[in-house]
């Protein structure tokens, strides 16, 4: 008995088509990188890492380790002189003269087993000269701080990043609009607040893993759990002095990314080691402990906000300063500082703005892209300030946001105007759904109940020319294969790719396969699977490729039938003529073409379509003022509302209800959009209540699931509601824009605002653990404690 209906979905865009890869995932059949079988030639790698946050490397002795039976090769930084980096080339593959964080790779071992490779690490002797570390970004920008990258001025850097050589500032984004200094006296209320947002980690269930093999001719193959096969090819090839076409990257299924598997982190280590053992595949997989701090982490932030409004609640000025704890290398993190810089007002219209966003080198783990790319960290404080400012002028927090939020054509802090957006609708809908203004009674005498709201915005943070491409071909059975370079990390990009191709072409969704795994040898180029950009950017490329196929098919049939292509259509995989009512299934013509009517020869041939998409109109932002006509491609906006209870006996927070509304333009698969909203809200609440990479003297104190708690099935809100708002994006496929990251952004401040509503307390930073909340209630006299 088949319990799931098998049907064909004719107009799949906007439908909740089932995941294209669900069956192979639930049977354990889908292959992740560690599931690939390589046979006995496989070698195993382990990395010798720095045990100091900042030190010079005086000497490395690998002789004892090399003589351990089973060890095949050991590499160090001496073997690899090239820099590597995405926006700023500031790191080596293996450290050469110095180490800059606890965990920095110093040597790599390839051996016949992981056990032997691990033993070899203990036999590698490294002599360090310890240097003073920088453990705080505000200290890092002070003149007293040691300069961690003395060569900053020589690093290759993207044109929109502005490092300050001779300092620890690897990027300073400035926003100057209007006149902030003269605006304060016009304000009826001004507040100043500071927040410390700690480091957290992505915690994908599948840790980072890379397998590299270098052939006799020096050609490289890299298998990696990767969001960015093409970027990895580009960056690693460049660093090793290879041509991009000499390197091939294959990414099997990815067990969660959240940004951590973008760019290059540990993948270059596997390739470097493999160069010493030509012909052998070399597997490097991170332990969970290593996953916590040796790939990417989410940067810490010290944020200072000053904002003021008039007595009608209109925001007049904001002066915001962000010091990003970027870590040892900020080759990726520099753009996070930039994105926060141009977004520093939050989703509000503010006429006078002074924003400074500094990416600062510290001797901490490497900060990199994590879901939200600076937006969760920034909104964490900003959305609390909005509540506090509203309170000061005696205005309701939702009313305050409705007055100030961006609406279609509002002027942006960077100049220019925003495209049509549904932010106001999102704020209204979540407020209504949470019962804003109505106080619900606590569930027990020892609980306090509160509600909070927060809004957000985010643009895809990427270079102005980040491109996508796609190809579409068909088989003899008329079914479709779509080639893409974007990855499915679980968000469902493969599924919606099939939906969009099917809808454009005129075939059922069930006829479309996605050519996975992504393999740079056969898959078309995709910049990276980040920035919530695939639905919009890759979607446009897929539509173009499918349109190309459709045109070829209709032109061919039109010629054969002596009709105009305008009178033809493809419906459910059949070419039909509205004029003559003739029909022919696709399978009759997509490989072998059609015979000429006179029987002499054939026309057509194998149908293959291509499409590509790249933004053309991003103008850049002035380095002194941050102003520009069209600084980003678009924004996704939204809001969340939270109802929670605080337990007076324990300090524990329980989320009763969470409501989210995001303007996604067009939900290609509404159920999957909601799934992103749910997953993001829970990841957001996890960061609000539990998560904190505890750094002490440069060491992560809690790199394990025992001491770094993430949300479990018992922490999910009792009730979650996800609302889709659709104000179309004019250049998006069917009007779509992204959602993957945004759902995590407003959760923390919404929770903080709800805690304030419940018990009247705020904190200078998350997580709002039971211990922290309880002790704060004790200090404030809200509870008496043990007598």
């Amino acid at each position: 008995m088949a319990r799931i209906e098998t049907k064909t979905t004719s107009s799949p865009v906007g439908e909740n088509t089932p995941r294209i890869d669900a069956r192979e995932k639930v049977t354990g059949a889908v292959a992740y990188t560690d599931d690939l079988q390589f046979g006995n030639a496989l070698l195993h790698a382990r990395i010798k890492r720095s045990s100091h946050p900042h030190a010079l490397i005086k000497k490395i002795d690998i002789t004892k380790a090399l003589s351990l039976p089973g060890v095949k090769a050991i590499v160090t930084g001496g073997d690899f002189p090239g820099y590597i980096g995405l926006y700023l080339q500031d790191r080596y593959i293996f450290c050469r003269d110095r180490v800059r964080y606890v965990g920095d790779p110093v040597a790599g071992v390839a051996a016949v087993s992981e056990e032997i490779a691990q033993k070899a690490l203990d036999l590698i002797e490294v002599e360090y000269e310890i240097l003073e570390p920088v453990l705080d970004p505000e200290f890092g920008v002070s003149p007293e701080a040691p300069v961690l990258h003395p060569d900053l001025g020589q690093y290759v850097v993207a044109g929109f990043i502005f490092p300050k050589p001779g300092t620890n500032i690897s990027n300073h984004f400035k926003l100057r609009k209007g006149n902030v200094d003269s605006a304060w006296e016009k304000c009826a209320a001004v507040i100043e607040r500071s927040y410390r947002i700690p480091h957290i980690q992505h915690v994908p269930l599948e840790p980072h893993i890379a397998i590299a093999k270098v052939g006799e001719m020096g050609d490289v193959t890299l298998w990696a759990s990767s969001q960015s096969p093409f970027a990895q090819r580009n960056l690693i090839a460049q660093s090793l002095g290879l041509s991009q076409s000499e390197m091939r990257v294959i990414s099997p299924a990815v067990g969660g990314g959240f940004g951590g598997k973008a760019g290059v982190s540990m993948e270059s280590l596997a390739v470097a080691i493999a160069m010493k053992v030509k012909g052998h595949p070399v597997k490097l997989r991170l332990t969970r402990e290593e996953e916590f701090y040796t790939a990417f982490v989410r940067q810490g932030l010290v944020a200072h906000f000053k904002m003021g409004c008039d007595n009608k609640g209109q925001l007049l000025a904001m002066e915001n300063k962000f010091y990003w704890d970027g870590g040892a290398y900020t080759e990726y993190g520099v753009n996070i500082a930039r994105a926060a810089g141009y977004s520093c007002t939050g989703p509000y219209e503010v006429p006078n703005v002074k924003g400074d966003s500094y990416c600062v080198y510290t001797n901490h783990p490497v900060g990199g892209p994590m879901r939200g790319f600076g937006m969760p960290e920034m909104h964490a404080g900003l959305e609390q300030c909005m509540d506090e400012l509203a309170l000061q002028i005696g205005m309701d927090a939702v009313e305050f946001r409705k007055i100030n939020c961006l609406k279609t054509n509002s002027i942006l802090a960077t100049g220019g105007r925003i495209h049509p957006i549904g932010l106001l609708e999102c704020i209204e809908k979540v407020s209504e759904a949470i019962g804003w203004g109505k106080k619900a009674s606590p569930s027990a005498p020892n609980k306090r109940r509160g509600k909070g709201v927060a809004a957000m915005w985010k643009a895809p943070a990427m270079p102005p020319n980040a491109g996508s491409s796609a190809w579409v071909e068909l088989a003899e059975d008329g079914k479709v294969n779509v080639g893409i370079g974007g990855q499915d990390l679980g968000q469902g990009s493969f599924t919606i790719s099939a939906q969009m191709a099917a809808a454009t072409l005129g075939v059922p969704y069930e006829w479309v396969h996605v050519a996975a795994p992504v393999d740079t040898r056969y898959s078309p180029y995709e910049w990276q699977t980040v920035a919530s950009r695939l639905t919009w950017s890759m979607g446009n490329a897929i539509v173009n490729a499918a349109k190309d196929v459709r045109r070829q098919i209709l032109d061919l049939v039109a010629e054969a039938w002596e009709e105009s292509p305008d009178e033809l259509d493809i419906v459910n995989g059949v070419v039909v003529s509205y004029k003559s009512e003739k029909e022919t299934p696709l399978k009759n013509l997509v490989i072998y073409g059609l015979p000429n009517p006179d029987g002499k020869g054939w026309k057509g041939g194998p149908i293959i379509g291509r499409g590509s998409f790249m933004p053309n109109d991003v103008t850049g932002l002035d380095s002194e003022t941050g102003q520009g006509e069209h600084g980003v491609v678009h924004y996704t906006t939204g809001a969340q509302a939270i109802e929670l209870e605080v337990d007076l006996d324990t300090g524990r927070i329980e989320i009763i209800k969470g409501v989210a509304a995001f303007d996604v333009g067009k939900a290609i698969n509404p159920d999957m959009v909601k799934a992103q909203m749910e997953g993001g809200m829970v990841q957001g609440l996890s960061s609000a209540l539990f998560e904190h990479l505890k750094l002490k003297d440069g060491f992560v104190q809690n790199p394990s699931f025992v001491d770094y708690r993430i949300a479990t099935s018992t922490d999910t809100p009792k009730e979650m509601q996800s609302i889709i708002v659709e104000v179309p994006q004019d250049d998006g496929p069917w009007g779509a824009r992204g959602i993957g990251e945004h759902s995590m952004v407003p959760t923390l401040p919404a929770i903080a605002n709800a805690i304030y509503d419940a018990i009247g307390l705020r904190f200078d930073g998350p997580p709002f653990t039971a211990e922290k909340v309880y002790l704060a209630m004790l200090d404030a006299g809200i509870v008496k404690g043990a007598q």
Partner: protein
Amino acid sequence: MAFHKINVTINNELEQVVVPSNMTLMAMLRESLAMTGTKNGCSAGECGACTVLLNGEPVNSCMILAVECDGASIVTVEGLAEEKQLAPIQEAIIHQGGVQCGFCTPGVLLSSFALLKRNPNPSENEIREALVGNLCRCTGYVRIIESVKEASRIQSAMVT
């Protein structure tokens, strides 16, 4: 390092495997038998990605030695479906949209399967408690919880 020949029934098939003393059940499945459906998320018994059933009980296979399984019966994710017919919990999780990256999914399916065996009509709280040892970073758990409820309904319908 000593080696041991053990007899273990996996998904109703008797296997004879030679394993070193220190090999975990997870490593035996993934490496000796190339049964890679069982996933390695932490090797520390914390995340539940390696969950299998050992004599009907859900265990973290990374915390069980292979030698302990001599004479035991193991069920892995590969054993849930019968021929082409997926188990109710597998159908339900697809239907509810409870699969995203899929890495936690095998462990979640086995914990849920074991729950429904011992408690065919669990309450929402009982479902949450049973799954507390299976970490998921993608879904936020809601649809996983709904999947268990749906599987419970499907199984009740089958019995009556």
